[in-house]
């Protein structure tokens, strides 16, 4: 398929992070994550539970960036209930990161020291809770040495080295894939440090390594991220009729 864009590969890679999740709450945050999560539910993970971004759980696949589409509400889930979901582990969230190290320690609170930051960003939001209580994946729309760093300034989301150091208290910690505009990374290595899982077509391993500020595990044979099927492309276009995914990840 010649008309498949880099953003479409990113959508597919996001959808794949939810494969096998079954009946849990999928919370993809970001434009491409939302399209990918909804694609997964529309195809191979029909039991996923998803929100409208506020207090409703919706049964239908809402298109992104379109107002006034009728929601098929299946349940009520105000913010307070969301913490019940997180604390009980029945969630898979996909978050962003301003910084990430090789073990998946994530920072989006601030750049510089916590007590007097150079740049105040989001704060801790729900990152400590998500990473210690339920499955967490990541979406990085701009893969660069600024994001993938040797050492994060502040640990908001907990990485594998720190989770292991907690012993039994870290038993619910689980990081999934890190999907970027260049490829897909995962933690499926002996020491759970990041490795390249797949490359989006047109990206070489050297490109991705050069855009990463620490030594990645680079396998000998790295597959391409799988292409969307025709049926998936049709659904992607329905979920994103305005082409917003191409604004998040341009060609």
């Amino acid at each position, binding site marked *: 398929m010649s008309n498949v864009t880099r953003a479409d590969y990113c959508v597919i890679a996001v959808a794949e992070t939810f494969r096998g999740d079954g009946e849990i709450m999928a919370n993809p945050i970001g434009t491409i994550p939302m399209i990918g999560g909804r694609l997964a539910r529309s195809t191979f993970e029909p039991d996923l539970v998803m929100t409208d971004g506020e207090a409703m759980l919706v049964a239908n696949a809402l298109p992104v960036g379109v107002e006034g589409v009728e929601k098929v509400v299946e349940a009520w889930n105000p913010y307070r209930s969301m913490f019940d979901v997180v604390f009980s582990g029945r969630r898979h969230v996909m978050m962003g990161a301003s910084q990430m190290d090789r073990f998946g320690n994530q920072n989006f609170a601030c750049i510089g020291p916590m007590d007097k930051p150079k740049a105040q960003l989001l704060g*801790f939001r729900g990152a400590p809770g998500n990473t210690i209580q339920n499955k967490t994946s990541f979406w990085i729309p701009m893969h660069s040495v600024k994001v993938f760093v040797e050492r994060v300034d502040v640990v908001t989301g907990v990485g594998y080295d720190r989770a292991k150091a907690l012993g039994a208290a870290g038993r619910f910690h689980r990081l999934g894939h890190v999907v970027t505009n260049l490829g897909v990374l995962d933690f499926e290595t002996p020491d759970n440090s990041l490795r390249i899982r797949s490359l989006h077509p047109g990206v070489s391993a050297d490109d991705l390594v050069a855009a990463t500020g620490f030594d990645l595990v680079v396998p000998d044979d790295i597959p391409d991220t799988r292409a969307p099927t025709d049926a998936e492309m049709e659904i992607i276009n329905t979920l994103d009729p305005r082409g917003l995914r191409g604004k998040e990840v341009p060609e």
Partner: protein
Amino acid sequence: MADKRITEEDVVAELRDGMTVGIGGWGSRRKPMSIVRAIARSSLKDLTIVSYGGPDVGVLCATGKVAKVVYAFCSLDSIPLEPHFRKAREAGSISTLEMDEGMFLLGLQAAAWRVPFLPTRVGLGSSLMEQPEIRTVKSPYADAEELVAVPALNLDAAIVHMNRGDARGNGQYLGVDPYFDDLFLMAAERRFMSVEKVVTTDELIAGGPLQSLRINRLMTDGVIEAPFGAHFTQCPPDYERDEEFQREYAASAKDPDAWAAFRAKYIDCGDHAEYRRVVGL
């Protein structure tokens, strides 16, 4: 039968320098802005603000009322980072207690239940634990697990905004999410609720499902009738967020002159009635 109706200025008169004040709502949603502006106009200082933060935190930081913010985020929703809060943080003019959103809920719940802490796994392994105010506790049971002891967020005062209330202090939300407003009130010594409209108790009950009656008069000391009291944050179904006004507010963080003009026009202009006249509400 007690009539708890008071004004925003009466709320300010109940507050003192250095107090810890909790503010209901979430981000730029259902914030008690008419009370926030009254605090901003007052001579109060060195407040500790506890909030799922939005422009409430930004306005109070920009007007020099704040010594410390207890928060997990500070956002205008459609504008992801609260610019005035950001400025205060980067200038180092305020201190913070950083928290996770769920941890924050436990802190309010602990205060509401009058226990010193509630245990959770949330925070373990993160930089939150570098803060001396957040400690761990060992389970006394066979598991002996080390957990975070989220400290009670005891509040000297709390302010929230509801859609409807009666003069006795019962309150009702008519939007999709109650947020944590009842917990803020339960965690506080002095409890104030502004409402879009004060109605009779009968009208309150008739005005929505029973589950919407989230606030009861055990939780409140004062009721402030403030139509458009949450402006420019959203307060559905009464009104949505005033995005244009919010952009003007956010832009005022760009330089001191812009902020001085915004402050003079919309904060120092006078009471809530005057604000409504100036904004055209």
